[in-house]
């Protein structure tokens, strides 16, 4: 039996601004099994990073988890206080941030920044913490670890910094690693290396939740994919199902917008229109205003996720209709 690492159900996270409630995450359910790599894909501002922050308990004010549950290794996180969350962050669940350039403290040696995580969560001697730090730094592929341990972030390249951040996230061997756009700020060669590293982590048994707008990254890494649009999951399925047989018009659009050296067309396909304002979402399907296959009921009725097969669910009236026929 596969073990569940993470089970997010019916999560709603909103920002309460002066101009009203902005629903960043709406009724999102996600599950991640042990050793599985799950991808969340979507445009900027679709709420994917807010899911990560909700799981970490790092939603910034005026944002708040409104309802739903987040269960990590059988433990409900939404009811925990800040003190208990501090014990879980970095130990059971850790996060790799998007910007390796600014995610490290500029006035602290990088080795100390990794070692700090061990010191927070375990009562071990300084020598032991240092030993484990050096071990994890070399495990993530940092050369000359003894020297790098004493380096400051500005003395390292972007790729090395991201490796340090991954080392930081991995040093406690967490059950779940959340990677929010881990390669976006890196060049293509380094991106490949970092992805290989993440893949290796999953092979070693860590569950990985990877968040990206980059379909290529998702296709290479993930076993299972959630497509998000305007705070909702619009389609989910195993990576092969989803890429071979995309059902939601938005997923179609996303896949169509991937540029390829081999493609025949000279013009890059795009999805017309812009992501809707999350403070004033249209009634019915959020994608309806941009959808080429929009029908009358799409403007008034919110579609539900329906299973087209055991490995593939989609949230679209087109498929609901097909199902009922």
């Amino acid at each position, binding site marked *: 039996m596969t073990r569940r690492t993470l089970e997010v159900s019916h999560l709603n996270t909103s920002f309460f601004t002066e101009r009203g409630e902005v629903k960043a995450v709406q009724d999102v359910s996600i599950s991640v099994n042990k050793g599985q790599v799950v991808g969340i894909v979507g445009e900027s501002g679709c709420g994917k990073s807010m899911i990560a922050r909700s799981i970490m308990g790092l939603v910034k004010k005026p944002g708040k988890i409104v309802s739903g549950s987040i269960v990590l290794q059988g433990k409900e996180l939404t009811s925990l206080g800040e003190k208990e969350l501090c014990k879980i*962050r970095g130990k059971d669940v850790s996060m790799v941030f998007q910007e390796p350039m*600014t*995610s490290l*403290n500029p006035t602290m040696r990088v080795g100390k920044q990794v070692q700090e995580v061990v010191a927070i969560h375990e009562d071990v001697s300084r020598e032991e913490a240092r030993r484990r730090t050096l071990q994890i730094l070399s495990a993530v592929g940092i050369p000359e670890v003894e020297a790098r341990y004493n380096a400051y972030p500005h003395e390292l390249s972007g790729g090395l910094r991201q490796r340090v951040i991954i080392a930081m996230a991995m040093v406690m061997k967490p059950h779940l690693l959340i990677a929010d756009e881990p390669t976006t700020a890196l060049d293509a060669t380094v991106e490949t290396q970092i992805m290989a590293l993440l893949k290796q982590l999953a092979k070693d048994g860590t569950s990985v939740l990877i968040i990206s707008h980059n379909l290529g990254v998702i296709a290479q890494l993930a076993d299972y994919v959630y497509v998000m649009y305007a705070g909702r999951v619009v389609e989910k399925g195993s990576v092969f199902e989803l890429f071979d047989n995309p059902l939601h018009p938005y997923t179609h659009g996303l896949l169509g917008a991937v540029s390829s050296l081999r493609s025949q067309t000279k013009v890059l396909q795009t999805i017309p229109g812009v992501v809707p304002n999350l403070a004033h979402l249209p009634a019915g399907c959020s994608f309806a205003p941009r959808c080429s296959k929009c029908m009358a009921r799409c403007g008034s009725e919110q579609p539900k996720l329906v299973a087209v097969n055991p490995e593939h669910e989609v949230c679209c009236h087109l498929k609901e209709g097909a199902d009922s026929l």
Partner: protein
Amino acid sequence: MKGSKASNLLRRLLYALIAIVGVATLVFVLLRMVPGNPVATLLGEHADKETVERISSSLGLDKPLPVQFADYLLGALRGDFGQSYTLGKPVSELIGPAFVNTLWLALAAALVSWVVGIACGLAAAIHKSTIVDRLFMGFSLLGVSLPVFMVAMLLQYVFARYLHWLPVAGVTDWTGYILPAIALGWGSAGSIARLVRSSVIEVLQQDYIDTARAKGRTGTQILVLHALRNAMLPVITLMAMQFSGLLSGAFITETIFSINGIGRLAVQAIAGRDIPLLQGTTLLCTFVIVMGNLVADLLYSVCDPRVRKEA
């Protein structure tokens, strides 16, 4: 790496020396450009011409300007600024004890400004846009905007004349430094508090603070271990520069509170056209300010590894 550090220090010391010699020259030229004969001021308007010439010659004021300038510079190098016209003693003997008094006052004022400034700034940043924030920022705005002489007189009125807690003026023991230190330190406490506040707020929004939270650090730990050092970088520079300002800019405070410091000595020198005394006090203040800035630079590079590398 070590060699470049040493040569960097040497370069900065050289700049400091150039600045001091420049000011020394400027002071010399300015004092000679001021109309009127200092000896005539010294002797009063009824002195006869012969006496004025005799005194001028004994003070060396009849020598050609370049010679006077050379004497002055060489003397200053040895710590000899000549004889004070008005007080009849060597300038070096006068500014020594005065500088000690000024140093105590500056240290006390610095203590007030650092402790009050950092505490207010931190509290305001943590309680951003609450009543605490507004209260502390209002307090620091008062410190920045009120002139020293007004604060000094208010303090004297309330704590000395009305409450009889502290002496009005003059220093017999350490309590004599309390009111002048507050009067002098409040202004810099205000600017330090404002800088600490904005700096801490800015640092708390940085990505690495999120990283620290994701590691499992609590709010207080993050503030102390990750935010404070980064937030203090600009503040350290301000504090070091202000300290040299406190050492050299206490003219008004020293005069109001009758503290026999450098500022008061300088005021006396100006009133009496006492050229050697004025040159001595000005050069001392210049030295202190230049050194303060040098220390600020060096402290900054000690605290910020990025600057260390560039340097």
